[in-house]
């Protein structure tokens, strides 16, 4: 068993820094990150609202996250834990978002597919970082030095708003895709799959199947 490499990375990383990263490396981030998920994507990409930040100059790190946080009466923020949400649901927006925002680091939970990486990430020179656990919310919260701003809170609510976070040594994250579009989770699943047959010995498929799990509309189900 070998411990993974630990690497400090800027949230506006150079292409060279990204090229250095290998699947399974552990990364800690310095700089500004922002949260953006379905609410921000729909507002920016489908309603064509102006993004209220200078991207990617301010940050090239898009976090799929809603923090456990509150906006106090005096306008200050209380931020506790920070954890990512599952990214595969955002696949249809991620390509257009990277083109629009110049994001180089997509940070979330569970990664995306190698097809997504090859289609959207590789042409944009971007990689995927997964949070660890899930979720190391308290550790990630410690890495946040300050909440710099919250955009679109009125329009989208606290959970979907664009939180701009100043980070120092924020992590751990694990490199889940590289610049060639290789996928850490698919690599692991390929290693696990051959052994599953043994675990399934002594089991039997259910007598009543579920209609709709295939596209065969003539399926008898039984």
């Amino acid at each position, binding site marked *: *068993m*070998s*411990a*993974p490499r630990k690497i400090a990375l800027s949230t506006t990383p150079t292409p060279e820094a990204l090229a250095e990263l290998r699947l*399974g490396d*552990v990364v800690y981030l310095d700089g500004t990150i922002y949260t953006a998920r379905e609410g921000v994507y729909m507002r920016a990409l489908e309603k064509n609202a102006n993004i209220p930040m200078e991207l990617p100059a301010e940050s090239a790190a898009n976090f799929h*996250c*809603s*923090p*456990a*946080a*509150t906006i106090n009466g005096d306008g200050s923020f*209380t*931020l*506790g*834990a*920070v*954890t*990512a*949400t*599952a990214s*595969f649901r955002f696949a249809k927006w991620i390509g257009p978002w990277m083109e629009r925002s110049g994001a180089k680091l997509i940070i979330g*939970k*569970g*990664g995306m597919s190698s097809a997504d990486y090859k289609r959207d990430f590789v042409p944009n020179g971007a990689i995927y970082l*997964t949070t*660890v*656990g*899930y*979720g*190391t*919310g*308290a*550790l*990630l*919260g*410690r890495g946040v030095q300050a909440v710099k701003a919250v955009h679109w809170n009125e329009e989208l*609510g*606290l*959970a979907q708003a664009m939180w701009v976070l100043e980070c120092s040594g924020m992590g*751990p994250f*694990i490199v889940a895709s590289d610049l060639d579009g290789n996928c850490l*989770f698919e690599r*692991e*699943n390929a*290693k*696990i799959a051959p*052994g*599953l047959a*043994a*675990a*399934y010995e*002594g*089991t*039997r*498929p*259910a*007598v*009543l199947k579920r209609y709709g799990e295939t596209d065969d509309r003539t399926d008898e189900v039984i």
Partner: protein
Amino acid sequence: MISIDLIQSTAETLMDKAAIEIPQDYLDGLRATAAVEDGDLSSFVLQAMLENYEAAKEDRRAMCGDTGCPRWYVKMGNEAVVEGGPVALEQALRQATANATNGVPLRPNRVHPLWRTDHDNNVGIGAPEIEYGFEPEPGQWIDLTTVHKGGLFGTDYRMLFPSDGIEGIRRFFLDSLVAFGKRGLACQPAIIGIGLGGSKDTCMVLGKRAACLRTVGDRNPDPEIAKLEEEFRELGNSIGMGAMGFVGKSMVIDCHIEVGYCHTGGMQMSVHAFCLSSRRAVARIRADGQVEYRTDPEWFTPYQRRETVGWNNGHREAAE
């Protein structure tokens, strides 16, 4: 009579404890799992989680950014009387949920399913859920348990039939673990709860309570079911997958099975994963103002699992 102000202030403390302090039984279970995990990435993840629990307690911040959906399990002794009655009780629990959401803070997860609108306080239509149980145990007391179950993944239901048998149960168990374990969507290793029987809704309730209201190491009093629980824990840990879906052997911290009588032709089954942030906190409040905090809900008592028509002085009546 049990003071309503004491109920609300205790409930607020419970919300804080649940979000921040990992229950000791789960922590011990995870440490034991981490000690034998030999997948390098899986092992790194478990160590990071153990550090995370410490950071949460030191900083008094929520252990996970997704603070789940707060809900309440209320159990009352047969003689308990709450000041203001059940309506005041529900109001106090809703108020405590809202106050703690802004106070801890928690993530205001709860939104309207269609309009996606919310009150930024985890309170809304049907939220938080409040469920009830009663006990013959004497004395004026009320147990409040809050569970902040996280995760959109890891839960599934299927109508099986007697002919599916144990092979079918095993199959659906594995299907659920693998489907939600890939990429770690179930936030494993988890306490897996399995509901068997009842009807569709009660099967889901049984499985969820098996996951959330029993502690690591607890066994079903039916020795055959207890054996199944242990078999399924080992089975889950033998599929070659660990934390985050990486190569490893840590999927199941423990497995709990609860059963309910069902239709003679069916065998309902549900699977629930109570994640790496298995948030639960309990307090017993008495009429004399005493409050005792604990992490074991002690929900599944002989009375909750009773099979017979009557119940006399704590003694089970003969089945006939």
